[in-house]
């Protein structure tokens, strides 16, 4: 069934057992919403120099948006900003592919669990759900590290 390509087991697992959920100490906090469906996320980033020491979040929304935040936490915490930015850009590329990008080995290595969202890119109404926490992270990072970081993550 086509639905299974969207709701991969790994997505449903993250949805049911989210990683790193809950708000903790941070350098900046943002609140992002998806006005079409009411998904919301409050996200904080904590940096140690240019290393991400924590991404904490609280939100409500569909399985895709909530699982995506959980995967983001898994992937980005402990990474250097440059590496995190590469992951974010690769994820954005995948989500904007309209289902036309078949993830190769390099992409899978970069995205790990996030590669499971490939099927979501076929559903235009849901792409925003998957990207919600990633856009929030980008925004929070710009706020935490200042305009220089905004330029480098643009």
């Amino acid at each position: 069934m086509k639905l299974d390509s969207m709701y991969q087991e790994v997505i449903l697992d993250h949805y049911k057992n989210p990683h790193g959920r809950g708000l903790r100490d941070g350098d900046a906090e943002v609140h992002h919403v998806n006005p079409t469906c009411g998904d919301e996320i409050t996200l904080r980033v904590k940096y140690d120099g240019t290393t991400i020491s924590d991404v904490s979040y609280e939100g409500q929304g569909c399985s895709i948006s909530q699982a995506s935040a959980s995967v983001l936490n898994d992937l980005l915490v402990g990474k250097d900003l440059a590496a995190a930015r590469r992951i974010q850009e690769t994820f954005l590329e995948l989500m904007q592919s309209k289902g036309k990008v078949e993830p190769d080995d390099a992409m899978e290595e970069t995205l790990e669990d996030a590669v499971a969202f490939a099927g979501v890119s076929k559903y235009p109404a849901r792409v925003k759900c998957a990207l919600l926490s990633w856009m929030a992270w980008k925004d929070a990072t710009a706020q935490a590290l200042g305009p220089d970081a905004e330029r480098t993550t643009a």
Partner: protein
Amino acid sequence: MTQLPGLLTVPNLLGEAIRKDFPILDRQVHDGRKVVYLDNAATSQKPRQVLDALAEYYERHNANVHRGVHVLAEEATALYEGARDKVAEFINAPSRNEVIFTKNASESLNLVANMLGWADEPYRVDHETEIVITEMEHHSNIVPWQLLAQRTGAKLKWFGLTDDGRLDLSNIDEVITEKTKIVSFVLVSNILGTVNPVEAIVRRAQEVGALVCIDASQAAPHMPMDVQALQADFVAFTGHKMCGPTGIGVLWGRQELLEDLPPFLGGGEMIETVSMSSSTYAPAPHKFEAGTPPIAQAVGLGAAIDYLSAIGMDKILAHEHAITEYAVKRLTEVPDLRIIGPATAEDRGAAISFTLGDIHPHDVGQVLDEQGIAVRVGHHCARPVCLRYGIPATTRASFYLYSTPAEIDALVDGLEHVRNFFG
């Protein structure tokens, strides 16, 4: 689709024959599943009769209205103005000149807000006056009034909601006061389905000399409309929810108000004479219809009104009430399902919002879509209602004259599948 036993127990239904008028209802989606269209509060489907009227207008009569002397211009004008006659009769307006064509209900409501913002006394909304709406309004009946309040300094007040999805009018005398200039509220809620008690609100508004504007977007398609019986000053609705095309809406307003109130949009059609220093305006309704209007769309709305009237709005109301009663009964059998809004079919329209356990409506809608079932998910442009009931969003199934009990059975089966999928 198989006809399930439920059909036998539901009275007052319109016949299956109606569905044949709507070509899209035969559409198959997702590998051969016949579409089950339960998103009628967002927009209705269009019968062949309306599609034909649109095609015939463009194929045979297309011209601009009210200006040419050639035969096509005269035909187009007659068809456009004929549509106005049909609308006037459909809503029992005392005069055809009280029917203003707009592009949708949002524009109609914005037009009222702007008439009052620019009006002279006694209509003028300013910093010493109050505007009253309700917590169950569509954003289109909230934001124009917020804008007006911000621009004039007027105070915006509203009626809250009860736990069972009705207006809380217990403090009506404090909400509507001598300072109130306008009370604008929805006749049938697009998210809760609630049918509101017009008379009580109009009576209080009249006591204090406030104008009344009614958003009938979810009422005009579904029940007989009589603007004189409503005793409102303005009534707004849209064509595309009542079998007409998109791009055509209606504002009905009482004649003396339309004569007194200033125009909002300026341009062609709405003038009497123009000089470089000033202009005088055409009488209503043209005063409020600047520019080339949505001509074909008005003609399409006229065809939709012919279609609905031939069936009979009282029969459509009875059909939808029966369908809604059946839907409420079946939906309350679904475990973990909570209806947001009145829990019975009494004083309720054919839109039913609900939550399903803690499964997000977006996920509910996606799994239903895979089964060919089209519902709306989200906050339905009525976010304050979601905030009021502490929920992020709802799933909404909404019915129309072609909806069948079998489609409701399909929805209930679909919801069972949703529960299993996320269980």
